[in-house]
């Protein structure tokens, strides 16, 4: 594709329909117009936040207040304000997975989430995730020695928990394909693999 075909703002006097370009535009417009109901009462809406502001984050089952700027990442809040240092700063771009936390139950990287963007979400860090299912994941990591220096380990533990929640009966091939979002430098992958295989075999407790 080479040329722009986007609609440029038209002169006044056009009817709505004339702003629609391309086949299917009218139908798409209908979908957009009918998607979404009433805006929720508690939403942050159109408010533009600049400078420092105090927000509430729902972390590990508690509401906690944090002072943030728009640029403040969730990882910074967890580590500097909540003293939850399990999620680690390893890469600026999330390519290591070391800052993995659960946001509404899904694995995301706290280093690439702005703190403001996770208001109203349920945030779970390794300090809490690792206790789930009677601490089965860390127990397996210890049992199979799936850690050396340990700096990647908390991120791995959260990723494994999220993976098992979705794939409780994963095969070895699925485990090998499914846990590639985390980097380990010491080379604990073989042990992590053993730990996850054991967790799957262990059944519901895993």
């Amino acid at each position, binding site marked *: 594709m080479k040329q722009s075909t986007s609609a440029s703002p038209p002169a006044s006097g056009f009817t709505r329909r004339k702003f629609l370009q391309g086949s299917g535009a009218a139908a798409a417009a209908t979908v957009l117009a009918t998607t979404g109901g009433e805006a929720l009462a508690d939403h942050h809406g159109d408010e533009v936040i600049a400078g420092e502001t105090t927000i509430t984050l729902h972390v590990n089952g508690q509401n906690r207040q944090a002072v943030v*700027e728009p*640029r*403040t990442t969730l990882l*910074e809040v967890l*580590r*500097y304000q909540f*003293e*939850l*240092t*399990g*999620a*680690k*700063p*390893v*890469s*600026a*771009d999330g*390519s*290591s997975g*070391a800052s993995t936390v659960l946001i509404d139950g899904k694995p995301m990287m706290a280093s690439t989430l702005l703190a403001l963007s996770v208001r109203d979400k349920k945030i779970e*860090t*390794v*300090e809490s995730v*690792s*206790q789930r299912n009677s*601490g089965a*994941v*860390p*127990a397996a*990591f*210890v*049992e199979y*020695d*799936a*850690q*050396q*220096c*340990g*700096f*990647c*380990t*908390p991120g791995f*533990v959260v990723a494994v928990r999220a993976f098992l929640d979705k794939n409780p009966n994963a095969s070895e091939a699925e*485990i*090998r*394909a499914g*846990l*590639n979002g*985390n*980097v*380990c*430098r*010491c*080379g*604990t*992958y*073989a*042990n*992590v*693999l053993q730990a996850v295989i054991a967790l799957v075999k262990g059944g519901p407790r895993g």
Partner: protein
Amino acid sequence: MANVQYQWPSASAAQLLGTRQRRLDGADKSTGAAKYTYDVNLPKQLIVKALDCPHAHCRIKSIDTSAARRVPGVVHVHVIKTPKKDADGNTVLPEVLFQGELLVAVAAETEGAAAEGVGKLKVEYEVLEPFVSEEELDAAVQAQRAKEGRPRVSIQAEPDDDVEDEEQFENDEIERLFREAKYVVEGYYGIDAITHCCLEPHGTTLHWQDGRLVAYLSTQNVSGCDDGFAAALDMTADDVDVHCEYIGGGFGSKFRPDYWGIAAAEISKKTGRPVKFMLERDQELMIAGNRPSGYLNVKLGADEKGVVQIWDSAQWGTSGVTGGGVADKWIPYVYEPPNYRRRSTFITTNTDQSRAWRAPNHPQACAMSQTAYDDLAAKMGANSYDIFERNLKHISSRQKAEVYAEEMKIGARLMDWQAKWHPHGKGPRRGSVVDGLGMAIHMWGGGANASTCQVKIHPDGGVESYCGTQDLGTGTRTICAMVLAETFGLPISAVNANIGTSKFPFSGASGGSTTVGAVAESHRRAGQDALAQLCEKVGEKLGVKPASLVAAAGRIHVAGKPDEGLSWREACSLLGMRPLEVTATFKRGQKTPLSDEGVGGVQMAHVEVDTATGQVRVKKIVAVQDMGLVLNPQTAESQIYGGVIMGIAYSLFEQRIMDPKTGAFLNSNLANYRLPRLGDVGEIVVEIYEPPDQRERGVIGLGEPPVISGGAAISNAVCNATGVRVPVLPMTPDRVLAAIKSQGRASS
């Protein structure tokens, strides 16, 4: 007190040694509770971020910090790279010799403000010509960046040889040896520079307390870094405490406070506030450690059996800005033919100076030479196994040829080598996929470092120990507790082993696989000394000779008669009111029955290569490793798994990519600095070789050896699969395709 005979219990008598023990800090690490340097937050601490130089070679003309100082939240700006005066009092502009060098540090209330402050620094540079093309010897010579080392030659002279003109004699002899050789192989091999890429970047969190410096430092050397801080800050080491409970990777790059650690201390002093100064990821890759590159041309000659008789090589490479390169001493690796000539050229590049990288020199030496031995097998149409075995006739290693031979047999069995073997390039093809086998062998010293341990036995039976060592993730903490528990006949949980600060008795830096021996020595000695003293009391009480007593299963009793004794607690109560404190020191190099040095090992790789894409996939790796007495098989195996995976990393993935034009480190982030992931490691089989005669040698370090031979083994497997040599590691898809194509051109 009787003279204590230091020794390990026999295999049958040992309660804990040799059994699988979970690492003591495993739960803390996997639940996020473990506090690393980066995780230590001190009240009112400032966050420091630094501006790194974007140019590989330049002079700093001026630095304007005014805008940075005005950024809200910025508290202090500290210029690291300041102009100097020459002898005549003229200002000399600072010269930067590689990208990433830190120029100015900005201390602020938050990470965001510090980073914004860094963005507001204005620096004028005079850009100079960089040179980073380390693989290109001719270019380096042309750029006057190359320096030849002294050749090393060893030619076996007969008594009647005329050696008046040594060089002429050598040349003639080498020519003759090649003429007489049944097989001659010429090859080019190399291995790119890689970085340490510790996941916890280098850095420190520190503060001053009443004129004393308390530094949490990510270091492999807690007992030595107080000196490092003190020397740079014009104070004495007694006024510095270094703490490192946990370290997020070191691999040989974290022995010193580094200049940014010193800057942190200066900023903290100036501002009167605690400071956290950790490198950013790209800075970590650019300036916090790399491994020298090496490239080598070789011609070797072998007899009809494939035993190499003459090796003639010329190598080059770089350790970075200070020149240097891979030591030729280890070439060819482990194997040492009767005749050889080795020439080296050292190249100076605009890249950071290298640091020790897990087994310095060895992985490169192995990858540049045992590949040639495999090419000899290919040329002969022989089974590589036979060539590697036959050449054990001429080795130079601290491990014995018989041990290697045994380890090769074990490896071959675990790999099912003979059944899977096919001659190079002659295996079956499935679609465009071929598979192949490769092997290589390695060696390492691993003698114990110096270490002191203080043991305290309380009258209530409590046991604690103090040692200024550190646990890099190797399981050191667990070993400390295990050794004392074994010595006292107690469960591991009964021992409180403390490490990780320079306040504790000195223990050497963790480098060169010296730590397990060090702490095993100091803890066993302190433990045996303490036990001997306790046995004096018990013997007195029971009316038996102290020498007849043993500690086992929570009791101190007469050997062979468990009933004739006291429980550990009863025994300790004989101490009266005061705890028993015993300190023992092991001096590096002293003669000892507890530890030794010199190990060997074999690795074998089975890979698949997609000849259409150049992708290499590891199917299986077998690692056979001796290490004398194995203390904790669990963590020992983990070390080997880790070494194997690092071998996969530098064989197939990681490389420092320098821009030939600008000298920039192009892939200084984890998105482009490729490391293997969980799905890349295939099946790894680890076998520890510990027959009685190896066990008797005592403890030998293990960290380095398993990382060494993976490169050559995987390269050889790729060659066996495809029938072509991919000369330089890592064997990225483009390089594999290029090798396949060049062979296609050669044969058509």
